[in-house]
C-alpha cells in the first residue's frame, strides 16, 4: 500500500510541470483598438526571480510613442485578465528605458504570481492607462520562428498549475 502511494506520488510529481523560480515575459501593446494603436506601440522584456517570498523584477523597454510615466506590477483574475495595481517599479528613461524592483510578496501576491496572474505594465504620457504589458510566466525557451519542438511547447494554462481543472 505504501509502495503504491509512493509510486502514485512520484507519478503525480513527474506529471506536474516544475514551477521555475525564474519568470519572464515580453512586453507588447496593451489591448487596443484602432484609435489607440498609435499610442501603444513599443517593445520590452522582463525577467524576474523568486527566492522564497522575495521577488526581484527587472526589465527594459524601447520605442514607446511617448515618454514612460510609470511601471507597475498588476494582478488580475487570470492569465491575460487585467486587474488592479499591486506594486510600483522604479523607472528610468523616457521612450526607451528600464525598470526594476524588489518586493517581499504577501501570501496572496505570491499565489497570484505562481498562477501567472501578475503582469508588468508600462504607462506613458499618451497612454496613461497602459502602453505595454506582459504577464510574468515561468521562464521558458522559445525555439525560434518555425522551429518545431516536441509536444505542445509552452502553453500557459497547461504549464502553470492551478489554471485548469478536470472534474
Amino acid at each position, binding site marked *: 500500500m505504501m509502495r503504491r502511494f509512493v509510486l502514485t506520488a512520484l507519478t503525480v510529481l513527474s506529471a506536474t510541470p516544475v514551477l521555475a523560480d525564474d519568470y519572464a515575459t515580453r512586453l507588447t501593446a496593451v489591448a487596443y483598438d484602432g*484609435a489607440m494603436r498609435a499610442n501603444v506601440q513599443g517593445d520590452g522584456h522582463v525577467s524576474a526571480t523568486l527566492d522564497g517570498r522575495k521577488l526581484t523584477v527587472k526589465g527594459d523597454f524601447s520605442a514607446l510613442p511617448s515618454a514612460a510615466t510609470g511601471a507597475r506590477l498588476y494582478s488580475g483574475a487570470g492569465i491575460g485578465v487585467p486587474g488592479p495595481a499591486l506594486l510600483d517599479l522604479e523607472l528610468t528613461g523616457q521612450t526607451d528605458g528600464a525598470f526594476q524592483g524588489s518586493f517581499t510578496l504577501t501570501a496572496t501576491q505570491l499565489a497570484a504570481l505562481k498562477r501567472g496572474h501578475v503582469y508588468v505594465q508600462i504607462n506613458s504620457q499618451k497612454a*496613461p492607462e497602459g502602453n505595454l504589458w506582459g504577464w510574468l510566466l515561468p521562464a521558458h525557451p522559445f525555439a525560434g520562428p518555425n522551429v518545431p519542438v516536441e*509536444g505542445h511547447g509552452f502553453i500557459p494554462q497547461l504549464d502553470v498549475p492551478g489554471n485548469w481543472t478536470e472534474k
Partner: protein
Amino acid sequence: MRALATLIVTAAVTAGFWAVNGAAQTSEGPFTQAQAQAGRTAYAANCGGCHQQNLSGSGDQVPLAGTTFMASWGRRPVKEFYDDIRANMPYGRAGSLDAVTYQNITAFILSANGAKPGTKAFDGTSTARISAIATGQVPADIANPPQRPNAESAAGRAPAMKLGHTLVGNIKEYRPVTEEMLVHPDPNDWLIYRGNYQAWSHSGLSQINDGNVEQLQLKWSWAMNEGGQNSTGPTVHDGIMFLANTSNTVQALDAVTGELLWENRLGPVATRAYSALRSLAVFEDKVYINATDARLYALDAKTGKAVWQTDIAPPGKGFNETGGVIVAHGKVIVGLTLCRGQMPHCYISAYDARTGKRAWAFTTIADKGTPGGDTWGDVPNDMRAGGETWIAGTYDPELNITYWGTAQAKPWMQSSRRSGTAATLYANSTLALDVDTGKLKWYFSHAPGETFDLDEVFERVLIDHGAQKTLMTIGKAGILWKLDRTNGKFLDARQTVFQNVYDGINKKTGELSFRPDVLKQKTNTWISACPSAAGGHDWPPTSYDQKHDLMLIPLDQSCNLMLGHDVAQHTGVVNPEGEERVFFMPGTDGNMGRLAAYRTADMKPVWSFQQRSPFLTGVLSTDGNVAFVGDYDRVFRAVQTTTGKTLWTVRLPTTVQGNPVSFSVKGKQYIAITTGLGGGSPFSKPSGMLGEVHNPDHGHALYVFALPEKLN
C-alpha cells in the same frame, strides 16, 4: 490600472446611459457642411460597400449610424474615431487615403448621426465627445439613399465586370462523377473540398515527398477576380480544374496547362471584402456552387451552362452563404449565414442534385415550444440569432449522416442577448443529420452560453480507430474535441493554445466551466478573453494523415477585451453588438501563428512551432510525408509531416489564403494554392497587429507547383 478601471466604469455608465436615453442635447459639430458633402462621396467610394450606403452595416461590418454606433462611440471623442478609421480603414488598405479624405469621411459619418455642421473645419484634433454633438438619428436622405449604381468602388468591391456565361465550354470527354468515386476518391483527383467526405485534406500521392520537395517549381499560375474575400480551393477531376472566384465566377481550367476551358460569371459582383466562396462540388455531369447571395446553381461540367438554380433563402433580405457545398447520396447540402434574427432563422438545407428541388431543411435556432426552445430563456423568437453554418459539413456514407458545425449565438455576449449561460441551441454545436430526411440524429453543444464570439463551426473530421467511429473538431477556443460520431457521446478534449475563457472541464461529459468573472459580466464593461474572436482555430482547416495518425492544426494566437452593448428585446435585426480591443496572447512572445500536430488516438501533441504571422490556409498533408500550409506574410511552406521541420518555402505576391490541394495528371503530381485577401478576424487581426508585415492590397491568384521535368 485603477485609472483604467475607473475609465471603464465611467465609460460603461456613459454608454449605458446613452443606450437607455437615446438622443441627447447636442451642440454644433466640429466640421463644415462642405466637409460632410465631400465625405459622403468619399464614403460611398471607400466605405459604403461594406458598411452600406445608409451606414446600416452588414454582417461583421458594424453600423456606422444609429444606436449601435452611438453605443460604441458616443462616449468617445471625435479624434479617437478619426484615428481609428485612419489606422484601420478602408478594410484591406488601411491608411491609404489622404488625411483630408479621412477628415471628410469623419464629418459625413457625424452628420449621418445627426450632428449639425458648424463653421470650423475638422482637422483631426477635435476632442468633443461624439454624444455631445450627435444624436444617432439618421437623416432621411442618408437612411434611404438614392440608387447610385456607378458611384461605388469600395474596399473589397470588385472592379466592374461583364456578367454571364463569358466562355462556353466544349469539353468532349467528361467522365461523370459517380457516388462511388466520391465515397472512394481517386488520389489523382480532388473531388471534394476537403479531399474526401471525412475532411482529411490529405492526398494519397507521394511523388512529391520529404526527400525532393525542395525542388518544387511553379508550373503555371492564373490571375483570379479581385474584390471580395478570396479563400477557396480548386476541385479537380480527370485533369480538369474547377475554380470558384469571387463575384460568384466559376471557371474550368486545364489542370496541366492553365488554359481556360469555360467561364460563367454568375454574380452578383462582390461589394465587400467578405463572403468567401470556399468550395465547389461535383457530381455526375454537374458542378455545384452556392453563390454568396444564397442562391444555389448547378452548372454543366462540360460547358459551364446553368442547368438549374434555386434560392437557398428568400432573396433580397441579405441572407448570405459562404460555407461551400457538399453532395452526398444524391443531395446537394448547403448552409446559410447572415440570418440576423429575421425569419426564417438560419438552416441547413438539401436539394435534389439532378433537379434542384428542396428535399429538407433543418433550422439551427430553436424557437419557443420546439425541442431545445427552452435553452434561450425568455429571448423572443425573433431575437434568437446566430447558429450560422459557414463551413460545409462532412459525410459518413455508412451511417448516411452528414455532420455540421454551427456558429455562435448573437448578440455575442451573454449579457447583451440576455440568455445567461443557457445553451442557446443549436448554436456552437455539432449536428448529426440524416442525409435523406434532415432529421436530427444527435447534437453536442460544445460551448453552452458561449459569450466571446468563439465559434465552434469549423470542420468535422471523421476518423476511425478500429471499430470506434469518432468525430474530431476544433473551434475558436482552441479546444480539440473527440466525439463518438454514432451517438454524439463525448470522448476527449485537449487544449491546443492558451485559453482563459474556461477554467475546467468535466472529463465525463465534456461540459466546460467558465472563468468565474465571465459569469458575472455586465453590458458596457470590458472583459478579457483568450483566444480572441480570430480563434484559436478558425476557418483554415486541419489535415489528417492516417498513416501517422496525425492531425495537423493551424492555430492563431491573440486575445481581446470585449464589451457587449445593451440590446433592446424587440423585433428587428440582431447585430453582434460587441466591441473588441486586441492584444498579443500571453506566453507567445508575440507570435500569432502556431502549427501543431496531434496524434488522434490518444490526443497527445507530437510537435508544434510558432511564427509571427498566422496561417491563413488549411493544411494539406500527403503520403509523401510532407504537408503544405500558407500564411499572412505571403509564405507558402512545406513541412515534414512527422516532425514539423520546414523543407521548402516560396514567397508569393500577397497573403496566401485558401485551401491547398494536390492532384495528378498523366503520372505527374501537382500542388495548387491560392493567394487572397479579405475575410473576418483571421485576416483583419494580423493586419492591425503586425505592423511590420506589408502585403499588397491585391493579387488574388492560383499557383500550381510540381517537380521539375527530368532531364534526358
